């Protein structure tokens, strides 16, 4: 995904929770292949010597070299001064915590932090609210209408990030954009040649719309898939008891899908907070660096300003914040696992 894909392939992580289980118990049935006719049986463990280690070695080795090592290098770089001069002469200048103290005392950095946090919060709140709403709607629609809406959602979900950014630039084009036309048609004045990318704020609003548009399908369709697992007798019972729709949601739907809501919310927080392509490709962090979120800030600080040491420090601080969120996410998943 989305988001990821944000996209799309971001469908990955969600696989984790359920299937993460199955250490010694029965693993949950895999959703994919229909060819697998029987439910899985318990895993029989066989003594196997060095074979398992040989089998996992290539995977571990490649992750160590191309994931762990870059992470460590990132930490090391954040303790160095690496500006234009050092970059060209390739010398190593250690500066201890200078990059961090400089950053933490810099109001620009805090502006970007606040911006990223608010941006993420608004985004995730909208995505979850709209996604849930559409999921519930899908559940109540007739067959045909449901197919139409799901298909439309699928298209939005599947759009590659860079392509969707390009399309949004065209939709919101100053001269010939269809959005300006729509605003005029609806009778708003001042949209003759309205520049939607005039300020950092307006740029981020467009990015927000893009992210919501691209992420809602994931939540809505999975929400709907989750709803179908709730037996209709629960709704019937709620109806018998005279519960209102709002009440039914909180008393029947939410408790049943609690882990879905929690896990999806955290996933969206992670995805939105580290979203780079959408923010950067929309307006290169501009105008006047006004639409930079943390990942874009790090990139521009490094590549644009030639402050690679500082950029590395920004990355590390961003990763620390992400890890804080992820720890909640992992706790949720591991708890899931025990329950299974």
């Amino acid at each position: 995904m989305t988001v990821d894909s944000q996209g799309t392939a971001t469908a990955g992580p969600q696989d984790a929770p359920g299937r993460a289980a199955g250490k010694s118990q029965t693993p949950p049935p895999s959703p994919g292949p229909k060819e697998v006719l029987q439910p899985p049986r318990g895993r029989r463990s066989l003594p196997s010597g060095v074979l398992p280690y040989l089998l996992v070695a290539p995977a571990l080795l490649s992750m160590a070299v191309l994931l762990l090592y870059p992470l460590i290098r990132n930490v090391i770089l954040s303790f160095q001064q690496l500006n234009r001069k050092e970059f060209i002469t390739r010398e190593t200048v250690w500066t201890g915590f200078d990059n961090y103290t400089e950053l933490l005392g810099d109001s620009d950095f805090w502006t970007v932090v606040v911006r990223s946090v608010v941006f993420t919060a608004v985004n995730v709140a909208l995505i979850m609210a709209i996604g849930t709403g559409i999921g519930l709607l899908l559940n109540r629609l007739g067959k045909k209408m449901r197919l139409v809406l799901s298909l439309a959602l699928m298209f939005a979900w599947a759009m590659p990030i860079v392509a969707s950014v390009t399309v949004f630039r065209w939709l919101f084009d100053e001269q010939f954009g269809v959005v300006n036309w729509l605003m005029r048609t609806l009778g708003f004045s001042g949209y003759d040649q309205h520049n939607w990318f005039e300020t950092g704020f307006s740029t981020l609003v467009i990015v927000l719309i893009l992210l919501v548009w691209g992420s809602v399908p994931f939540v809505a369709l999975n929400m709907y898939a989750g709803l179908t697992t709730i037996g209709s007798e629960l709704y019937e019972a709620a109806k018998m008891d005279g519960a209102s729709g709002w009440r039914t949601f909180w008393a029947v739907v939410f408790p049943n899908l609690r882990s879905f809501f929690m896990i999806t919310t955290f996933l969206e927080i992670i995805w939105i907070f580290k979203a780079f392509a959408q923010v950067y490709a929309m307006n290169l962090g501009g105008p006047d660096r006004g639409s930079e979120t943390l990942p874009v800030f790090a990139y521009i600080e490094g590549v644009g300003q030639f402050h690679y040491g500082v950029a590395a420090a920004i990355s590390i601080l961003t990763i620390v914040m992400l890890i804080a969120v992820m720890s909640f996410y992992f706790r949720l998943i591991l708890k899931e696992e025990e329950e299974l």
Partner: protein
Amino acid sequence: MSAATTPTPQKLRTRKPLTVAAVAKNLGALVLAVVFVFPVYWMFSSSLKPQHEIMTKDPVFVFTPTFENYKTATGVDLFWTYVTNSLTVTIGAVLLALVVALAASFAIARLKFKGRKGIVLIVMMAQMAPWEVMVIAMYMISRENDLLNSIPMLTLIYFVMVLPFTIWTLRGFIAAVPVELEEAAQIDGCTRGQAFRKVIFPLLAPGLMSTSLFGFITAWNEFAMILMLNKDKESQTLTLWLTQFQTAFGSDWGATMAASTLFALPVLVVFLFLQRKAVGGMTAGAVKG
């Protein structure tokens, strides 16, 4: 924009059809469908419009389609280099990941060994790796090793990006194959390796297929890494071609939308093909049941 049009359905299967509520909910669904599909539709339709019907203040909805824009888009210098690079990088990464993940996921799903749990945890964490914020370090490492503008390097990075997910999914698929099948093959005289090749592997084919297509989508979507590492024109992929298109072609939106369409088409096709699995995978994962 979608926020304004979202109805909040409050009752679940409580009313009979043909009431005001039923009309409202169908109408709402229709509006939502239009909102979600519009950008994709607009991309397609703009890409087929002649120049003068794009550069107008009032958009044209009925027009005679032309492939002029596609000619412009594919006519840029190095277009086929970008195509080749994109395909090399994505397919290379996915195939590598498949081979490496198959071994690892077999071990995790079927064999008992010390440290298994730890490896599972590592894979889970690697899945969430914040690649977007690791570009600076990756750049320095590539620079030191003369691996900037290198297609193999990019392939390897994408390989590790899709690896954890591939291990995860394959692990699930392998675990779903009953052990008894494998044992029966061994009783019939197969070695362990043969049992895997002849029994498990054929059953895995659909799983391998969907897993690799998801990997393909991830790699196809990647932007931050290629932006940072491959600045040479010759070593770029379609992703950068598309983002730089606007700059290069000023306001030739017709050609830009043709480029977007070409870029999006493979993924749209693959995705619609996979849609059931995309949603199903989530339910099995996050939602118990």
